[in-house]
């Protein structure tokens, strides 16, 4: 789960990281009022769950309340990479002496948490990683002891920070690590972390993502969820225990198991089609789940045919067939359906489907080939 910049700043502040004062506005007037209250220069920043706001014109400086109002008017409602801007963050301008990148991520190959920093703050870290990886300083937290003060200092010295700034940096790095662990994040990033001209550390922009599997213990984070930022179909699917990801193609896919669902999408592509979605119905594939899956898939007007691919394991093929039959009675489909049923009691299942006038194939390849043909028929 992602949160907005202003929410990330809130969480950082709660963990003792100094953040730039800011307030959220949903209208130009509000933005103007906040700018008046802060005085001086402010930045108006689009709050959307995507990167590249700067390039898209989603961040503007304003030197007066009127300018702030005008900037907010431009940004609010803007579409940035498919995300509509409903909120802007108005922050006080800061006098930047130095910009640093500081982030905490999971180092998957090492199975450890990694703290990384770069003196090239303010630019995308992926770009720095590609162009000059030696400029990224990183230390892995001990899996048991966590990230230790000496490691934070090692990063500070490797960044070439003035010795007077080392303890301040180390303290922020330790707090950022603590934020990652205590909040069950999958990413926390301050970019840029700045030193102001008066020598203070300040988190100017930050980004956070959280482990969906750990939200059960973070009610406060869950409350930060911005429904407007989520695909309504994906949200709906999650509530039914279905994994769903919207894609750009025209062939709806309903599969049991995440790996098989991906493989099914790949097979559709292999036979010349484009998948409209990733969908894992989970274990059972009972009528309720299948019916729900039909609803989710057909919510997309692009869908021109549907492929159901079920490998009956513990779930028996005959049960699955009954589920599909019943679901089709409940949800009227106006696009062709191809079913592939294999595994436990597949023959019995196919008979049930045949009796109900639904044809089923034996193999994934056959099914993928057929569904692509039918979609483009």
């Amino acid at each position, binding site marked *: 789960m992602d949160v907005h910049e202003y929410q990330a700043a809130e969480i950082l502040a709660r963990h003792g990281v100094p953040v730039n004062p800011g307030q959220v506005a949903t209208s130009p007037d509000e933005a103007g009022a906040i700018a008046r209250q802060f005085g001086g220069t402010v930045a108006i920043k689009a709050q959307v769950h995507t990167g590249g706001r700067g390039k898209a014109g989603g961040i503007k400086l304003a030197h007066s309340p009127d300018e702030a109002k005008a900037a907010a008017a431009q940004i609010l409602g803007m579409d940035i990479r498919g995300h509509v801007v409903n909120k802007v963050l108005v922050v006080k301008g800061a006098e930047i002496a130095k910009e640093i990148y500081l982030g905490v991520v999971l180092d998957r190959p090492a199975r450890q948490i990694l703290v990384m920093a770069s003196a090239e703050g303010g630019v995308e870290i992926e770009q720095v990683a590609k162009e000059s990886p030696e400029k990224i300083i990183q230390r892995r937290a001990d899996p048991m002891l966590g990230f230790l003060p000496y490691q934070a200092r090692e990063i500070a010295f490797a960044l070439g920070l003035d010795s007077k700034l080392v303890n301040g940096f180390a303290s922020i790095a330790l707090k950022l690590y603590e934020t990652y662990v205590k909040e069950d994040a999958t990413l926390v990033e301050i970019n840029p972390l700045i030193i102001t001209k008066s020598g203070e550390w300040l988190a100017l922009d930050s980004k956070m993502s959280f482990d969906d599997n750990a939200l059960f213990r973070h009610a406060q984070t869950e409350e930060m969820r911005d429904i407007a930022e989520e695909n309504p179909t994906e949200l709906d699917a999650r509530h039914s225990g279905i*994994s769903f990801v919207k894609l750009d193609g025209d062939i709806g896919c309903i*599969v049991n198991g995440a790996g*098989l669902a*991906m493989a099914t999408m*790949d097979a559709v*592509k292999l036979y010349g089609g484009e998948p409209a979605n990733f969908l894992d119905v989970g274990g059972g594939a009972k009528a309720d789940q299948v019916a729900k899956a039909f609803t989710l898939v057909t919510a997309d007007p692009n869908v021109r045919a549907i492929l159901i691919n079920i490998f009956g394991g513990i779930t028996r093929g005959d049960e699955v067939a009954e589920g599909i039959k019943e679901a089709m009675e409940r949800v009227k489909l106006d696009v062709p359906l191809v079913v592939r049923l294999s595994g436990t009691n597949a023959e019995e299942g196919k008979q049930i489907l045949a009796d109900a006038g639904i044809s089923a194939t034996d193999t994934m390849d056959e099914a993928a080939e057929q569904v692509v043909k039918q979609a483009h028929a």
Partner: protein
Amino acid sequence: MSILVDSSTRLLVQGITGREGSFHTQQMVEYGTNVVAGVTPGKQGEQVAGVPVFDTVADAVAKTGANAAIIYVPARFAPDAIYESVAAGIPLVVCITEGVPVVDMVPVYAYVKEKGARLIGPNCPGLITPGQAKVGIMPGFIHQPGKVGLVSRSGTLTYEVVDALTKAGLGQSTAVGIGGDPIIGSSFVDILKLFQDDPETEAIVMLGEIGGSDEEEAATFIKKHVTKPMAGFIAGQTAPPGKRMGHAGAIISGGSGTAADKIKALESAGVGVARSPSQVPVLLKEAMQA
């Protein structure tokens, strides 16, 4: 022979009285797995599918000599369950549970490693040595004893390929589902090592997916150490970046973890990568005849 589990495996089931635990215990017993004990705190004295239930793993191990554990407890209790089994001296722990927070898995992984135990999963279907022991949730009947070792990050995709192998006359020595989470106890490399060293495994199938770099590390390992014929498949060629594909670990992030990279890595290690799961037995046979 086989790897990790066989007819000498004495299995303990954690969370045996739960819905999943009791159902799959029944299934495993029916398959012929030697399930010797179950654990659910407070249910000592009960039985599930004829298997005695204990309050603690330590007690169950003392009384039954269990040497492997499988975990069906809910995600928030799974780390404690892993610690309990490893602390009780069980050398092989299989965690089926999906949804364990990653931050919890960091110390779990380190602890298991430090104690010299082996963890499979979490978020995995388990493993099976056909005809000897099924330690997981896979449908047993699609498997057939044989010489092909299989290792996979997925569940149903594994069944799909196993089924295809069996139908192609390629039985399996052991099939291992290592799990779809960002941190799992055993990697491709860990299992490939075992297959390479297992005299009865003559060929190896590896099923990967997008996210992380386990497949790339496997490719490096294969290049150096694997002499047995192999074939593979990578799911998620059509997956978009930045989106989690069902599995917590199946996500392309920051441009890395793509299927294309993984396929390229495996192919450069000499592993034939199938374009569709049904092709896997074909490629494997070719590799075996080469």
